Every structure is written in C-alpha cells, then in structure tokens.
C-alpha cells in the first residue's frame, strides 16, 4: 500500500525574488532524498507562496524494499585450516557480517574460491525514515539569511509552522520551536487555519482558504485576469514576465484592479512614468491599441474583489504623489545649464581610490580623443565626440536620475535635447551605457560607441588597478559584462583597433595619475588576461572549439573582428581535406623553429636548391602576408602562408636541417624561424587538433 506524503513549511513573507529558486531546490532535494533513502515514490509536486514552501509526493511505499546482499570474505584456503576447521579469519568475517560460520558458502571468483555469506536487509518503515526530512528544509539555501527571536537558526525568514503528513499520519519532527502538525494556515485576512485530514487534499483545502498554492496556476490566474481586462477596456497592457513573476510571489490570492492618473502627467518622459509604475509600485502600465501610453495602471491585489474601489483609490493616491515628485524633478532638472550641473560631478565620488565622477569624465574625454584620432574622424565628429564625452555623466546630478537610477542616460539624452545639444551628442549620452545587460542592444552610432568603449575601459582598468578583480560568481561592478560590451561594440563597428592597444592606452593614463595601485606588471598582465578570457568566452559562444580559440588568441585579442574571422576560417579549414597538406607543412616549421634563434638566413650558406627555393618563395610571400594582416584580411593572409606549403614540403624532403656544419644548420634554422614568426603571428596552428571531422 502506498500513500501520499506532504511537507509544508510556513514562514513569514519570503522575499519574492527567492521563491522560484527555493521551490526548485525543494523539489530537487526531495527527489534526491527519496532516492538516497531508497523509498519508492511516484511524483513530486511543489507549491510555493510568499508564506509557504510545500512538496507533495505521491505513491510513497510504506517501507524500503528488503534487500538480499552478498558479502565476500577471505579465500577458502585461508578460511579453513589443514583439518578442515574454520579459522579465526572465517569466524571473524561471519561475525562481522552479523552471521554464523554455518551461513558460509563458497563461490569462485576469478578462479579462486572465496568465503561468502548472504545477508538479508530488512527495509525500514517509511514513517520512521520521513522524520529525517527536516534536513531537506534546512538544506535550502537563500542569498540572504536572518535570525529571529532567541533562536540560533539562520533562514530566509522566520519559520512559523510545519505540516508533515504520511497519508493521514503526522510525521513528528521539530525545527527550533516549531513542531510538525496537520494544521496549515490560509490567507492572512480571508482564510482561516485548517486541519488537513490527509496529505492528498492539500491543494483543495488551501483553495478553500483563499490560497492558490500552485505557482503556475497563480501566475496564469493573474495573466487571464489581465487579458480579460485588456479585452474589456480595449487596452494594450505592457506585461513584463519578470514583473508578472514578482507579483505572483507577492500574493496568495490575486485579484487584478486598475486605477487612473491625471492626464497632465503624460507630459513626463514615458520612461519615467513606466519606471514609477513598474519599479516602485509593481503596476502594469497601459497603452492604447496604437501604442500610446494611457493614464491608467493595473495592479494585483492580495485578496478577493471585495472593496476593490478602496484599494484602487489608495493606489491612485500613492501613484499621484510619486508622479508629482517626478514632475517636480523634471521641472527642476531643466533649470540652469548643463555646465552648472557638470560642476557638481566634482562633488560625487566615483570610487574612493579613483576619485570623483569629474575625474572619471576627464579620463573618458582623453580616451575618447585618442580613439577619435585613431579612427580618423572628421572635425565635426571629433567635436561631437568630445562634447559627448564631456557631458556623458551630467544627468547623474539630476533629481530624476537620483530618484530613478535606472534612467541614467535615458534622461541624459532627453535633457540634452531640451538644453539644445546636437542630436548625435544627445544620443551618445544614452548609448554610452549600452549594452545595459548581457547581450543587450549595443550602441549604434559612432560617437555613442566611442564614448561607451572609453567609459567601460576606464571602469575596467581603474578597478583592476586597485585590485577589484571578478572571481567566480563575484563581479559586483559588472566588469565582465562591460568587457564583453567593449569587444562586442568593437566587433559591430568593425573597427581596426587592437584591444591590447586600447588597454595599454588607458593603463597609461592611470600610470600618470600615480594612484596607489598594484604594480604595473601585475595590472598589465591581469588586464590582458581578463580581456583574453572574455574574448575566448565570446568565441566559444559563436560555436568555435576550444583548441581553435586557444590557437587564435595566442597573440592576445588584437583586432577582435578580424580575430573572429580568423577563428571561423580555421574552423572551416579543419573540415577541408585539402588543407592537410598546408597545416602539416606549417606545423613542421613551427616545431623545428622552437629550437632556433631568429637569425636572418643568408643565401651564401645555402647548399641545395630546395632551401634556395623556399627562401625565395618566402621573400616573395612575406610582404604580401604583412599587407594582408595590416588590412585585417585573415583569409588573404592564410592564402599567402599556404603558398609556402609546397616549397616547405620540398625543403624537408631535400634538406637535412640538423646539418653537421654549424653555420649551415643555423642558417636553415634561421630561415625556418623567420617563417615561423609569420605563422605564429597568424595563429598557433600546432595548438589545433587537426584530426578532421567529416
């Protein structure tokens, strides 16, 4: 006979952001626990609301299955003495297994007979084993824990009740002052406490007490109500999944309501309105069918539809106060000039060791200037880039951004336009924060891209200089995301600027600042390694195998767009049977050149035709190869190197490199090392696993 098991942990309101993860942990850990306990079970179903985490397991066997186990002891000749009596070894073994010598039988293992006993292990009662389930509750991890009262336990929020049932029976266990029972608690205000007769009826009983315990059902209930409202009103709601999830975990019994705000607020920037509604109040903003923002909002209440007017009026009042604030900020922010606002940046800390925001802007301007030069921008563009760099942070002193941090850049763009800045400059202010999240949109304008790269490089180089280096899951300043942003922007703009050149430029500015940083060499090495790892990550994301990634990044990231092309080219070449001839030739050169100093080969020491031919071929190919590399055309460059394959093969066929005569030998090695330098500049071909996959 199998039964259903139910465990419920009643808590004070959990942070909404913890719930999905905690539920997933509970379900997984429950499965693991049952498997480890060897208790047969059917299906595991999880439930979660702000006030509870629960798991229901169907078809749980009443006991562990019995098992028959065989234990192997000493060899027969050790177990029996010359008289055929049991030795001490045999007696000891059987005793150790809880058996008697009479239970011993012999069995052959790999040609030798050994002592064996067969053991019967009786399965334990599930009811008893289930008492250990408290360990599952205690093993759930949260990103922040707390203590309460006088207890020692640290948990996400205080534990207030527990239900543990095996069919109709209570499974006793205790966590701090809370002991399991069959009593659960319904909705705080609409429900009551309820006694669960058995484990199966959990969901239904809670339903009657105004708690929808199944997360998907609760979320769908909200979604359906939103869609119905949308249809009845002819609205278009902005249903953000993340917000929907959060709202789902703020309520146990959801009812959707709507409210209105004064039309005058629609003059505020849309982003400010939406942020006020979403971030602060967890409302869904409303649009018309045509997409214009309408002066309404939709919220989700934790309760039924009674007195919904009161709830709606209360929420309207709150939103009105918030929007009035926003309106006040918007008007205040437009007073004065941008330059007056810039002055305040010198009073805002960026990083204690790295100075104020004004200091940061100074560095961004210098970096922007250099990049503009390298890109050969025209005078107008240079001017715009300079202005964009100068004012890219001015909106950080506005009250609107002070209140809604996530609007940094967005407000900067809007205010810059109102203050009469050029369009390209205004746009760059917003774009310089891009990408705002992993794989978010990249800056699209030239000037936005330059300032974005300058700002991010400054942050990364500065942070690493003072020892803030991301490790494992720790990256509080988002340095990895920013480095990815730099690389992706360089790629999308197809700019021919080696990443290492950029890093060294910014590092140079920091050196001149004489900050109390780590040693130059350490910082230099960390920076180069940091960007290389980011580049490797992006290449891997594009489906490029690790060996080719390694081969391509052997000289650093360089011009990232060309590096990607190079890696893709090598992926193709690995699939190309005709390339075997080439990589074998080039690979041999790389191998031998390891033993050589790069001395220039002199024709007078050549002894045979094949080395002369290789020398001449190289003389011809080398300048063309250099040009192709300068033009960032990896395919052209590789084609040039490939032209050397045939003379190289001939060379090895017709020449003993390690000749007796030292001069002749060094001359040959010198030739090879010259060629190897070109190959290595392209990629470390020997790092690639060439076994072709067809």
């Amino acid at each position, binding site marked *: 006979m199998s039964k259903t098991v139910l465990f419920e942990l009643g808590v*004070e*309101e959990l*942070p*909404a*952001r913890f719930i999905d993860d905690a539920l997933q942990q509970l379900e997984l850990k429950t499965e693991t626990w049952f498997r480890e306990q060897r208790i047969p079970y059917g299906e595991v179903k999880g439930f979660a609301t*702000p006030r509870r985490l629960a798991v229901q397991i169907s078809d749980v066997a009443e006991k562990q299955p019995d098992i028959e186990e065989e234990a192997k002891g000493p060899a027969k000749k050790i177990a029996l003495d010359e008289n055929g009596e049991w030795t001490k070894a045999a007696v000891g073994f059987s005793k150790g297994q809880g058996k008697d010598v009479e239970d011993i039988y012999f069995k052959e293992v790999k040609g030798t007979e050994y002592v064996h006993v067969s053991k019967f292990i009786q399965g334990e009662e599930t009811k008893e084993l289930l008492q250990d389930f408290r360990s599952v509750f205690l093993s759930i991890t949260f990103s*922040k824990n*707390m*203590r*309460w*009262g*006088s207890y020692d336990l640290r948990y996400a*929020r*205080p534990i*207030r009740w527990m239900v543990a049932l095996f069919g109709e029976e209570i499974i006793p266990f205790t966590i701090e*002052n809370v002991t399991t029972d069959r009593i659960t608690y319904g909705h*705080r*205000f*609409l429900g009551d406490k309820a006694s669960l007769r058995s484990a199966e009826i959990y969901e239904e009983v809670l339903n009657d007490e105004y708690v929808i315990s199944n997360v998907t059902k609760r979320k769908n209930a909200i979604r359906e109500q939103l869609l119905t409202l949308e249809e009845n009103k002819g609205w278009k709601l902005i249903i953000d999944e993340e917000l929907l999830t959060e709202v789902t975990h*703020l*309520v146990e019994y959801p009812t959707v309501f709507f409210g209105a705000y004064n039309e005058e607020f629609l003059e505020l920037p849309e982003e400010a309105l939406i942020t006020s509604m979403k971030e602060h*109040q967890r409302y869904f903003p409303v649009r018309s069918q045509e997409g214009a923002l309408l002066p309404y909002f939709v*919220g989700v*209440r*934790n*309760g039924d539809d*009674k*007195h919904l007017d*009161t*709830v709606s*009026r*209360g*929420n309207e*009042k*709150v*939103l*009105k*106060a918030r929007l*009035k*604030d926003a309106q*006040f900020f918007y008007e205040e922010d437009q007073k004065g000039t941008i330059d007056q606002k810039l002055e305040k940046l*010198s*009073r*805002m*800390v960026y990083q*204690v060791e790295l100075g*104020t925001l004004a200091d940061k802007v100074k560095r961004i301007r210098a970096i922007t200037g250099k990049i503009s030069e390298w890109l050969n921008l025209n005078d107008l563009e240079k001017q715009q880039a300079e202005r964009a760099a100068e004012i890219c942070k001015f909106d950080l002193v506005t009250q609107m951004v002070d209140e809604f941090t996530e609007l940094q850049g967005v407000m900067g763009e809007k205010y810059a336009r109102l203050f009469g800045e050029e369009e390209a400059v205004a746009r760059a202010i917003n774009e310089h924060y891009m990408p705002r999240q992993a794989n978010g949109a990249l800056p699209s304008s030239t000037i936005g891209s330059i300032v974005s790269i300058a700002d991010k490089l400054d942050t990364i180089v500065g942070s690493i200089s003072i020892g803030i280096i991301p490790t494992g899951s720790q990256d509080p300043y988002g340095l990895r995301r920013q480095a990815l942003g730099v690389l992706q922007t360089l790629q999308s703009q197809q700019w021919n600027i080696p990443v290492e050149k950029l890093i060294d430029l910014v590092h140079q500015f920091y050196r001149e600042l004489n900050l109390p940083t780590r040693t130059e060499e350490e910082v230099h090495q960390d920076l180069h390694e940091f960007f290389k790892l980011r580049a490797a990550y992006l290449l891997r994301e594009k489906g490029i195998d690790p060996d080719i990634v390694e081969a391509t990044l052997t000289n650093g990231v360089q011009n990232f767009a060309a590096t990607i092309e190079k890696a893709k080219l090598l992926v193709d070449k690995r699939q190309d049977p005709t390339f075997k001839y080439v990589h074998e030739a080039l690979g041999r050169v790389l191998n031998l050149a390891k033993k050589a100093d790069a001395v220039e080969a002199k024709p007078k020491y050549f002894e045979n035709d094949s080395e002369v031919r290789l020398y001449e071929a190289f003389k011809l190919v080398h300048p063309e190869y250099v040009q192709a590399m300068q033009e960032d055309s990896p395919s052209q460059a590789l084609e040039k190197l490939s032209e050397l394959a045939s003379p190289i093969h001939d060379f090895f066929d017709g020449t003993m490199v390690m000749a007796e005569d030292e001069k002749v030998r060094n001359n040959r090695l010198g030739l090879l090392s010259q060629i190897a330098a070109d190959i290595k500049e392209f990629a470390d071909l020997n790092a690639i696993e060439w076994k072709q996959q067809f």
Partner: protein
Amino acid sequence: MNIQDMILTLQNHWSNQGCLLMQAYDTEKGAGTMSPMTLLRSLGPEPWNVAYVEPSRRPADGRYGQNPNRLYQHHQFQVIMKPSPDNIQELYLDSLRALGIDPSQHDIRFVEDNWENPTLGAAGLGWEVWLDGMEITQFTYFQQIGGLEARPVSAEITYGLERLASYIQDKENVFELEWTSGVTVGDIFMQPEYEHSIYTFEESDETMLFNLFSTYEKEAERIMEKGLVFPAYDYVLKCSHTFNLLDAKGVISVTERTGYISRVRNLARKIAKTYVEERERLGFPMLAKEVENHE
C-alpha cells in the same frame, strides 16, 4: 482619526503588549532608531520592549513648507520588542485594526526591504508594509547594531505617522492633516518647517558647525574613555545632526564626506561595545528582573 488619537491608540495597543511607553528623546536625530531607547537597548542579552513617538529631523528634506509630502521634521512611532515575539506580525496587524484599518477591506502586503545604516554599523532584514500600495511601516529584524551581532534579535516596527494619517484622513497635503480636532499639522509646523529650511540651506554658520562637529567628537571620545556610555552617545547624536546640517548645506566634499561618516561609525562601534561591557559589569539587570518576574 486625528494624529493625536492615532498616537494614543498605538500607545494603548503596544502598552497592552507589555511595552514600556517612553517619550521622545531630547537630542536631535534623523530617525527613531537612533534613540538610545532603540540603538543601545537592542544590544546585549537583556529583554527590552518599548514604544515611543520620535520627531525625526532630516535637514536635507526641508522644503520651506512648500512640498505636500516632504518635511524637515516628521514623526515616527517606534516599537522595539526584544526578543522578537513569535506572533509579532499578528501584533502589528492588530495595531492597524485598532487604528480602524480592516485588513480584509484593503490590500496589505509585506514587501522585502532590508535596512542598513552604515553610519551606525547597523543592519537588519524585513519588509516595508504596504497599505493599498502605500508604504506605511518599516518592519525590521535587527541583525547587527554598532558592528555587533544582535542576539537575541529585536523586531523594530516604525510607523510613519504623517504617511499613515494622510491615508486615514484621506488628505493629500501633509500640512492639512488634523493633529487634533480643529488644529492642523500646518498650524503647528508650518513656521518651523519654513524657518528650519531657511536656516539649513541659507543661514547656517558653516564654520561654527565644523567646529561643533570636532568639539562634539572629541567630547564623545573623552567621556567614553571613562565608560560613560549614555553621555558619550548623546554627543555622537549631536555629531550626526551637525553632519546632516553641513551635508544639506552642500559644504562637505566627497573625500571629507566618507571621512566624516567613518568617524561617526567608529564612535558608534566603540559605544556599542562599551555599552554591552557596562551592562555586563552591572550583571545585565533586566535579565535578572525577567527571571524574578517568572518566579
């Protein structure tokens, strides 16, 4: 319900839960948490249950009495229960019922909000309580005070009285709230709001304030050496308010700012440590009292 009746109702409610009713502390401070009735008493093992109204000064929030929501000085109703009782949330919800707010007719939620005050080396976990979307209470389980671990844990409940009143009285302008029948908040506080704003932003004497800060700081250090915790803490509060005045005036530069905050924090840490040591020396009297009462 006018504000005066709200205060009486809350006092009654928490008094019935065994809280001592205290009066506002007589030194300027930014929040009810900073009263020694909370900050010092929530340290150490002794039980402590208290409720009081605390006028809280935030110089930077002064708006010359022109803004309907922001004030130089507002009022908090502060409750501390140590150790936090198992039914503390219910006790709190009962206080709302006592104020005439029937939870079943509203939308009341506990939304995660963790509190931190680096100046006091204090941190806690809890919620802001929403009433129909409005934040009316800060509900915190103290985890750390003055850099020391809080054991047992105190529950701190801070009602924003003006906020709550604006909901109960359905008023949009804080100055129109009824303090008692026929007298509004504006009648009592408009003039001080206006004058304090002028003083804070225009008239305050920076040189004098800088001097005061150093003088208060030195005095705090000096008397702490003598183990005089409460007087030393008063001077820390004075430092904190002086700093707020300077900050609101915009005369503290970046580097200085961090320096000032860490100076106040260091003082607060030392005081927290000394307070616990002094209580221990006295044999944790409130602990002994509790045992007595139970016998």
